[in-house]
């Protein structure tokens, strides 16, 4: 475990600007405003090799560059605080622990890309965090860190807080933008991407909370020092949210390069009641399910990619042997069925059919043909859906059908090894 991005969380009064400044807060902003040109800031972020922490791992500096290159009378910076990926609660730690740090990151981003206005889109499920942010913004306005001519510089920037209202899809940046515009959060097709055409058609930078929290740190210690953390391909640290059947559930800041085994057994104290690990789901409900024999994988974007794993938001769900794979995937699929925005055909209909078929299998009424259908639907959703939600929704299904194929097949014969699924007429003999 390390303490780089989250070092101030829990160490200060989150609304005390005095505390924050005392601990070095706003030093980076001052440095940026008075000693650096926007292009230098972008270069520094590019040098740091910071990749987006929201899920897509897009190089942050490059994204900033895209927005800065756009010519427009108006540009926006959006902080994506719609942490909706099940099992992810790391942004909440940052939002509650040190809101000024995130806002400082936004201010620096605004300066770098040439935006004067920012939005923090926070999920409706975090009402307390939202209140805190509203207060934080008010304080910063009074203290001259937000508004016109910040710290008497030429730079002006303002922030509005906007609330989500219960829609997972709004974590997707174009759906989020729709939501800020007051619309249902239905994703737009891309391109155009938000850096070119985003909020109200203007160039828009959307960064995740954790990404923005990295910014003041990088500028404070310098890209070179920052890169000392982590691995070659994945610099810095990552906040991971561990949940499920582990002894110590929670959010931990770790350096890239740590193994999954170290996370689960060293940091989190292993599984509860010494249960046996069945699989880990990485990156939330839209992530892959990997079996216990892959525990020695290192947390690293490149290494993960080699195994077709996305780190996503950095959630790790620990699933033990007491869990039935089919039942688990049914629950996961119900989540996506509930959260699909309904706009594009594959996602709107695909999730529905997946749930329907899985219910059938869990009731012992499934057939070999159903497994083929699941494969068909998953492929179509992955390849043809309009946005990331539909594309990623069948990931867990696909990976469990790969690693736990026999368990699906057992259900066709009316047998559930976890004893979760109750079949009409009871458990059949093998």
């Amino acid at each position: 475990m390390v303490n780089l991005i989250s070092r101030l969380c829990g160490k200060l009064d989150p609304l005390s600007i005095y505390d924050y400044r005392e601990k070095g807060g706003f030093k980076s902003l001052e440095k940026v405003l008075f000693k650096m040109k926007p292009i230098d800031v972008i270069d520094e972020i590019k040098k740091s090799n910071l990749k987006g922490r929201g899920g897509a791992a897009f190089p942050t500096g490059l994204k900033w560059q895209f927005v800065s290159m756009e010519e427009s009378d108006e540009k926006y910076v959006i902080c994506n605080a719609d942490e909706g990926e099940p099992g992810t609660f790391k942004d909440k730690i940052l939002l509650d622990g040190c809101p000024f740090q995130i806002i400082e990151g936004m201010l620096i981003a605004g300066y770098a890309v040439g935006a004067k206005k920012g939005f923090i889109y926070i999920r409706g499920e975090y009402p307390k965090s939202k209140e805190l942010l509203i207060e934080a913004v008010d304080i910063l306005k009074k203290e001259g860190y937000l508004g016109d001519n910040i710290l008497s510089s030429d730079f002006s920037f303002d922030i509005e807080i906007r609330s989500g209202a219960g829609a997972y899809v709004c974590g997707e940046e174009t759906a989020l933008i729709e939501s800020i515009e007051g619309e249902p959060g239905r994703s737009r097709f891309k391109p155009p991407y938000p850096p070119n055409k985003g909020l109200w058609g203007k160039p828009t930078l959307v960064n995740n909370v954790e990404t923005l929290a990295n910014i003041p740190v990088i500028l404070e210690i310098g890209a070179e020092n920052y890169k000392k953390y982590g691995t070659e391909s994945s610099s810095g640290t990552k906040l991971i949210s561990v949940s499920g059947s582990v002894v110590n559930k929670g959010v931990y800041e770790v350096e890239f390069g740590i193994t999954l085994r170290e996370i689960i057994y060293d940091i989190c104290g292993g599984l509860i009641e010494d249960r046996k690990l069945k699989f880990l789901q990485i990156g939330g409900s839209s992530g892959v399910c990997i079996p216990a024999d892959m525990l020695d994988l290192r947390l690293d974007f490149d290494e993960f990619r080699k195994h077709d794993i996305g780190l996503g938001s950095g959630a790790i769900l620990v699933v033990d042997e007491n869990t039935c794979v089919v039942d688990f995937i049914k629950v996961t699929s119900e989540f996506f069925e509930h959260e699909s925005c309904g706009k594009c055909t594959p996602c709107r209909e695909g999730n529905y059919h997946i749930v329907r078929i899985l219910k059938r299998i869990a009731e012992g009424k499934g057939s070999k043909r159903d497994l083929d259908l699941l494969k068909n639907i998953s492929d179509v959703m992955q390849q043809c859906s309009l946005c990331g939600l539909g594309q990623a929704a069948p990931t867990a299904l696909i990976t469990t059908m790969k690693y736990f194929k026999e368990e699906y097949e057992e259900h066709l014969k009316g047998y559930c090894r976890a004893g979760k699924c109750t079949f009409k007429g009871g458990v059949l003999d093998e």
Partner: protein
Amino acid sequence: MNLQQIVSDAIDKKGNTKDKLIEILLEIQSRTEGNYVPTESLKMISESLDIPLSKVYGVATFYSMLSVKKRGKYAIQICNSAPCYISGSSDIVKIFEEVLGIKMGEVTQDGMFSLEYTSCIGACNLAPAVKINDKVYGNLDRNKIIEIIASLRKGGE
């Protein structure tokens, strides 16, 4: 306070522009008895913000935190996402249903409680967890649930 007043206060507070629609709906819901956005309020918003009523309704029915149906004074939202599921959320559902004598999606006769599912509320370290209005309750078991309900009935938090 009457509905008209709640709506106009919400619009005054959040701003009279189309992009504030969701904020306004949340505000109205939080201040309306029964934790919901009454259809009458949708008409008022449609007029004030010059948004077609069909669109206002479309937004109100898109977001799952918004309800156009009356809920309980305490809207109990049980997380049914994977982390809480792993920690036994389906048992929690049964216990709540048993203790309150209603099924998921229903409201108790006295209007005090309603039960519904919610997607992940970010309390995975406290799984299984529920959200009751703005407050999160975690590490639930039968005793804790009985305790929470009793305390809310008494008017406590």
